[in-house]
């Protein structure tokens, strides 16, 4: 990744006019996408991600703002004047043309010379391993093959940016997983910036360099998959990416000087989250004096939400002993076996419920059953304060 921006979204707003209640699809969005990046727009349906992608492609007008492509304003260009290409959700292959003619379509419209069109089209068909299907019509291909042809067709004119509109949503699970790998590989191989729209968080996490999580026409958070999973900024992001326990807490002040024993752990955690501050909070469930990470500063005494991922919670049978740091008592409400993991629903002593996930490793023993009293440890380095 270099410092060049492939795309700059500059205060872009999209309003769908309506007599009584106009819909704001995008609300003053600004961010940049780097050259060579695999960038994902992730969000539930109706969040504006597809609208934004279609605006970059030139299929929707921009109500306000600008879109820059490598520094040039493309906001007012027609889609056929923009050096970006799209892989459409339902592929939109031309049914009356063969695979070869579909892939060559863009190059022909650009008026490239015949020899170049031939070599480039064949190279694309090789890239997607469809050379032997060149003379087939789209209706004679399977869904996965059509998907690959749509990709080759969009890549053939060598666009500066490739837009992908939920391209995998129509495929079955196995094929989808295989295509993820293939897409990622093709992106690396071609070095073209990919902007990928999806509502599938797993897809986003496995493929992207960076993800923009969107909801209600706004960007909630932009970051690498790890940043977004580990340090979600708000409840929406925490809940949308993976599973999250949201607990109530009260800020008691800035960071308390850490105890000597936990100093090593604390500095390790520091490396994960550089631009974050530390807060001292009391959890409402009874654990007091935790030093946790936060992206924003809160005043002392403020009620905030904190998040912990289910797999970071530790559960032990009730025992008597010393050194019970960050531990509360609770009851096992239900246990579901999920193959790689076991999911445990817990009821804390104060009535709050908590979700935990334990990996079914070789030495994992289910030393407790439904109804058992257990000790629940919530490690403070895994807790994150969420903004409103």
């Amino acid at each position, binding site marked *: 990744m270099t410092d060049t921006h492939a795309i700059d979204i500059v205060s872009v707003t999209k309003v769908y006019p309506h007599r009584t209640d106009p819909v704001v699809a995008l609300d003053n969005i600004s961010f940049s996408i780097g050259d060579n990046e695999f960038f994902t727009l992730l969000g539930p349906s109706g969040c504006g991600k597809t609208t934004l992608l279609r605006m970059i492609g*030139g*299929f929707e007008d921009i109500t306000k703002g600008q879109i820059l492509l490598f520094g040039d304003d493309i906001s007012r260009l027609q*889609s*056929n004047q923009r050096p970006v290409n799209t892989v*459409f*959700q339902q592929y*939109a292959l*031309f049914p009356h043309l063969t695979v070869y003619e579909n892939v060559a379509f863009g190059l022909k419209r650009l008026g490239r010379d015949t020899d170049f069109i031939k070599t480039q089209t064949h190279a694309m068909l090789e890239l997607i391993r469809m050379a032997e299907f060149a003379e087939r019509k789209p209706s004679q291909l399977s869904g996965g093959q059509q998907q690959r042809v749509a990709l080759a067709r969009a890549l053939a004119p060598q666009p500066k940016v490739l837009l992908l509109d939920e391209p995998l949503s129509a495929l079955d699970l196995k094929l989808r997983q295989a295509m993820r790998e293939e897409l990622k590989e093709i992106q690396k191989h071609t070095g073209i910036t990919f902007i990928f729209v999806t509502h599938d968080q797993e897809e986003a996490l496995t493929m992207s360099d960076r993800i923009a999580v969107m909801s209600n026409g706004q960007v909630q958070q932009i970051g690498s998959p790890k940043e977004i999973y580990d340090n979600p900024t708000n409840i929406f992001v925490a809940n949308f990416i993976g599973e999250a326990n949201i607990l109530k807490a009260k800020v008691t002040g800035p960071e308390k000087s850490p105890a000597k024993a936990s100093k090593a752990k604390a500095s390790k955690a520091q490396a994960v989250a550089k631009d974050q501050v530390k807060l001292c909070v009391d959890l409402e469930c009874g654990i007091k004096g935790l030093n946790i990470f936060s992206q924003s500063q809160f005043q002392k005494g403020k009620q905030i939400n904190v998040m912990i991922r289910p797999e970071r919670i530790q559960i032990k049978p009730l025992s008597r002993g010393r050194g019970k740091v960050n531990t509360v008592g609770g009851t096992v409400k239900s246990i579901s076996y999920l193959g790689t993991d076991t999911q445990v629903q817990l009821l804390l002593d104060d009535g709050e419920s908590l979700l935990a996930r334990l990996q079914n490793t070789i030495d994992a023993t289910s030393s407790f059953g439904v109804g058992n009293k257990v000790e629940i440890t919530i490690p403070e380095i895994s807790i994150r304060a969420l903004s409103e």
Partner: protein
Amino acid sequence: MAGWITKGGNGAQTSIVDGKQHILLMPAWFVIGILLVIPVLVMLIYSFLTQDFRGGVIWEFTLEAYDQFFIDRGLFGDEPARIEWTYLGIFWRSFLQALFAMVFCFLIGFPTAYFIATRAPKSRSFWLFLITIPYWVNLLIRTVSMKFLIRDTGPLNNWLMSWGVIDDPISMINTNFAIQLGLFYSYLPFMVLPIYASIERYNFALSEAAADLYSNRWTTLFKVVIPAVKPGIIAGCILVFIPSLGAFLAPDLLGGAKNFMIGSLVEEQFKGQSGDWPFGAAVSMILLTIIMIILLFYARAQSRDNNGGH
């Protein structure tokens, strides 16, 4: 229909196969048999019979009618046989008229259909309704009205003169232009409706894909939209061309005697005492044969299209 049959109980579907419920197919056989096969057979037989001079036929088989159509033996039938150009000429003119009517209907009908199909779903039925309103009136009345509209002292000429576009009325009655106008007005919906149905099913993501791949509006139209809605266009063309070829109201009322078309020629043979029924039947059979040949070519092109890519 299938649902209705299966309601009859278990095994209802197999009983159709073993022939017990042929009665259900009776309406279809009735339509095809009584209304299609028998009339055409009657026509075929009549075309080989001898003309009775008071109208009607004499039951003596002869090739006289076909001979009259194709071969010229002079006024008294004693000259060496030459090709008779009179009727072939009428066919040729009718052909051109039908072809032009088809082209004009397409040029106006396609944009109209496209316009309607791209409106909001709610207002589409309103536009279709507008298109069909004139067709609630009988074709004869519409054609006669057209005659009044375009005659020398009619509203069109008056209007053009009052605006100073022309000084003297243009005589439009009894011209090819008048026939074209009549055919166009008679058959436009037959072009609009099938094309509309095709465009309504058209996936507009294809147009976006074409634009994305550097096509301008015209290349998108010619390289993507038209090929994708081709079946509707062909259906529309057939539905306009074939009735135009045999039309007799528009040519008769608007074209006058010198712009004779096939329809008028046939009509003439069955009208009054001077008619020649076998000759009228023969002309009809020749027209039918030509149309069948055109449709066969179309069907073959169609099946070649569908098996394409191999």
